[in-house]
């Protein structure tokens, strides 16, 4: 790598430096817009005792779910985790700690983490179990919770197209948590479908500017669909 060319050609380079006990923030919503190859690399590396921050934890055998197979995740921060039996089992066995976080608060925690905002107030969760142990403060007549931001040692992100500088765009709703995750990693690794040359992406249409991205790798994606719903079946 020289200058701003952040493209790496192997997954081991892409995830170099990931160590046991680190925090990994992952983009994606369900199985949509997940960095499939980077997750596979973490499984291959066998890194353990990870704290993973992601809206969901994949399904059995796909997405972040594969990191459960060898018990690589010790703590999961997520808004909804109900899609895999292995998760359930490890949770009940006490092998896995879970911090359930409201989806919007989770998105904002990642954004705030990347934006140098250590904490913010939100009405979400006031009066619920989410408020346990958190400061509640009345501002202009309404109660709000103080929520700390999240940063990670690594962020793993999936985009559609990126240039060599890491400027990237996401495709449709595969955007989801990826832009915030991208900002919140000490090292942010971007896995993309296509690498283009700098200048090919219109500057004002870039979703995530390259300043947030440390490494870019071209991946191949299965893009498994969680729930195929079509007109024929439903209307």
């Amino acid at each position, binding site marked *: 790598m020289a200058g701003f060319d952040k493209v790496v050609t192997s997954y081991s380079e892409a995830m170099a430096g990931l160590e046991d006990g680190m925090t990994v923030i992952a983009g994606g919503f369900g199985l949509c817009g997940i960095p499939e190859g980077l997750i596979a690399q973490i499984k291959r590396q066998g890194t353990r005792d990870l704290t993973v921050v992601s809206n969901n934890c994949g399904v059995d055998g796909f997405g972040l779910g594969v990191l459960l197979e060898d018990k690589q995740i010790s703590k999961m921060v997520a808004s909804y985790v109900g899609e895999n039996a292995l998760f359930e089992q490890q949770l009940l066995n006490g092998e896995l700690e879970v911090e359930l976080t409201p989806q919007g608060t989770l998105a904002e925690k990642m954004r705030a983490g990347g934006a140098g905002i250590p904490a913010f107030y939100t009405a979400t969760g006031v009066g619920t179990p989410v408020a346990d142990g958190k400061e509640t403060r009345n501002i202009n007549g309404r109660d709000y919770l103080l929520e700390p931001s999240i940063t990670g040692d690594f962020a793993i992100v999936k985009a559609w197209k990126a240039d060599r500088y890491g400027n990237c765009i996401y495709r449709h709703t595969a955007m989801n948590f990826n832009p915030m995750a991208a900002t919140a990693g000490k090292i942010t690794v971007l896995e993309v479908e296509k690498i283009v040359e700098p200048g090919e992406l219109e500057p004002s249409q870039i979703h995530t500017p390259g300043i947030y991205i440390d490494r870019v790798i071209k991946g191949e994606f299965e893009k498994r669909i969680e729930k*195929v719903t079509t007109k024929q079946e439903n209307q």
Partner: protein
Amino acid sequence: MALSREQIAKRVAMELQDGYYVNLGIGIPTLVANYVPDGIEVMLQSENGLLGMGPYPSADQVDADMINAGKETVTAATGAAIFSSAESFAMIRGGHVDLTVLGAFEVDQNGNIASWMIPKKLVKGMGGAMDLVAGAKNIICTMTHANKHGESKLLTECSLPLTGVGCINKVITDLALLEIKDGAFHLLERAPGVSVDEIIAKTQGKLIVSGDVPEMTFS
């Protein structure tokens, strides 16, 4: 007779107004999209990051990168916008969504809602529900009036852990349409053929019945 799921959805749909941005939860709320009254346009917000959710795709339109918050494959309506989940919840938390419709286990007379956690059962998570109930200006809760044991789900005080506090304005059940205000359920409409007495019997929370309670109509 108690309303079917479809009838509940149909009654909810009558609350829609032209130009509303609406978030529909999973279950009965999703069905509301099928009953938007003629002459009215609404735009559906899906909290993963889509404003202007269209119908399900045809088999050859299915795209793994185009899903809704229920993780179902969908299409984008004409004039849709797609954005990050942070932007999506900025909309929700900031009160820009006109109406949210969602289901619940319990609702109480102070507008509290419990919809995500049953102690000693495995908790899958709250997803976006806590943000939706904290942020929406206007929330309709859809549910059966009582559980399968005949116990009321409209309570003096929710027994389950809450999703949100003092946030539910309106409840549409299989038996009735009720408004929540001033610490009580106000019975506004009853399902066709359902007696006020039955509703009284199945409402554990404080219920206000004033005058004749009209039967629901669906158009």
